[in-house]
């Protein structure tokens, strides 16, 4: 049986979020489906939508808001599975700053990674407590949010994962306080999704089916045997900090297990709900056909 080369672009450095990918790789689930998967990390997450859209990469891991943005610009990418089913993005601060409610943010400096979407999210959150964006000071601190927070350069950050940055802060011996987005007026969305492009689904449907099958199997295994999953991740990436990823995985497993009806499912309500929010924020074209942005059938059709 001839294995066909398939490229998968990770959204970030290999971390606990990718536990299922490395499990599938280690257990040769992809090879069982006749796929030879080549994993790599591009410069920044938005790259993936373009490379996948252009067919340079076959699959990628991306974010629901970004995918909607991309589709609004005509990039033919499609979400075929959810990987993390709720937002991981959050507003984070040191517990010493006593910020636990959006109203506490008034007059504070907030660091963000320079991605405009975060500003929209922040607006919604502030709005839930009657504040506006001009009540805070924004600072683009790049992707390294934690140093900015620890050093006191900023009082809070947005764009930080409560499965990653929070652990880093705690590992530095600091307490952390987190405001989750869905608690403060931002509609639910899928933080991580598996994407491919329209042409792939059209021309290579069986390949996509096989890929999704192996992919989901990998994550199912992770849910059942988190420790093995961690081992596989570290084995493939000895450069990774296993303590950090271990804690991250602990936080992720409950999310993954809670995915209904099964891991990877996508719900119309989540897609429509968040898209509407984006339209309201003028981030995407109001005529965008949301139903084309995702294809839940690949997961649904799995036995």
């Amino acid at each position, binding site marked *: 049986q001839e294995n066909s080369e398939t490229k998968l672009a990770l959204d970030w450095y290999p971390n606990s979020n990718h536990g299922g990918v490395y499990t599938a790789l280690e257990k040769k689930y992809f090879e069982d489906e006749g796929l030879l998967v080549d994993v790599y990390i591009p410069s920044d997450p938005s790259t993936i*939508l373009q490379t996948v859209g252009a067919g340079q990469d076959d699959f990628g891991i991306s974010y629901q808001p970004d995918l909607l943005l991309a589709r609004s610009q005509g*990039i033919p990418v499609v979400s075929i599975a959810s990987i993390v089913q709720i937002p991981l993005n959050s507003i984070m601060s040191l517990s010493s700053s006593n910020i636990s409610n959006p109203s506490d943010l008034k007059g504070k400096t907030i660091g963000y990674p320079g991605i405009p979407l975060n500003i929209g999210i922040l607006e919604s959150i502030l709005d839930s407590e009657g504040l506006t964006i001009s009540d805070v000071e924004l600072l*683009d601190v*790049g992707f390294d949010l934690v140093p900015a927070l620890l*050093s006191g350069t900023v009082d809070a950050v947005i764009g930080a994962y409560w499965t990653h940055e929070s652990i880093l802060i705690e590992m530095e011996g600091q307490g952390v306080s987190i405001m989750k987005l869905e608690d403060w007026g931002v509609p639910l969305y899928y933080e991580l999704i598996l994407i491919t492009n329209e042409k792939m689904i059209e021309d290579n449907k069986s390949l996509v089916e096989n890929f999704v099958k192996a992919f989901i199997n990998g994550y199912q295994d992770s849910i059942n045997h988190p420790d093995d999953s961690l081992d596989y991740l570290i084995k493939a990436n000895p450069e990774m900090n296993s303590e950090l990823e271990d804690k991250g995985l602990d936080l992720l497993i409950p999310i993954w297990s809670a995915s209904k009806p099964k891991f990877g499912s996508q719900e119309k309500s989540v897609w429509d709900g968040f898209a509407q929010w984006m339209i309201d924020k003028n981030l995407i074209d109001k005529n965008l056909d949301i139903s084309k942005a995702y294809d839940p059938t690949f997961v649904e059709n799995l036995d």
Partner: protein
Amino acid sequence: MFQIIFKTVKKYFEYGKFLSIISPLILIFLLLIIWQIGILIFDTPNWMLPSPVAIFQEIIDSKNILFKHSLVTLNESFWGLLLAIILGVIFGIIIFSFKTAERSVYPLIIASQTIPIIAIAPLLLIWVGPGILSKIIVVVLISFFPVVVNLIDGFKNADKDYEKMLKTFNASKIQILLKIHFPFALPYLLSGIKIASVSSIIGAVIGEWVGSTEGLGWLIKVSSPQFLTERMFASIVILSFMAIILFSLSWLLEKFLLRNY
């Protein structure tokens, strides 16, 4: 002095050089047409590679935004470049004059060139804050190396015979440096400055990548996750023009300073 500059410019344009000026423009124009046609033929979507026309359209549409951010970047590049030249000359003189400096400071300078600025950007932000200083530091870090290397090599290239002659005049080390080494190194220094003038632009862009809310680098950065590819390319086109302008200014400076060489 301005008169001389003016004459240099004038001389450059006269002599019926009209044809030789427009012929390359024609070439560039041809390249653009090929690009445009290629995009039409292959039906390349905008988000993958925008067409020259689309980019041009974007420049016109967003001229105010682009202009505003251009000024910011140009400002950072200019001051960074100036500082890079000054520091480059100072370090060049120190390294050339003291053997110990050559063996200790020079390797450190080389090492400084390998620091991935994007990686230490958060640290930079913590150390000096998000103001213009952090951008100027990045510009200096990137631009001063060619100045230093070229200046030192220029110094070393100076004709020993002249140096010895000045010694028979009882010249001090500083006099020999000023009257012999420096003039001999000047053509090298100016090559270094030309290189630096171009890298100062990209230096400012990199500096803006983190901790900024303005400048073309920032504009590119925020356009990218929004897939505003035309705007990204429009910014790059403007950056290119800025680089060509700074390079041309360095070139005029060269023509002026080396007019008697």
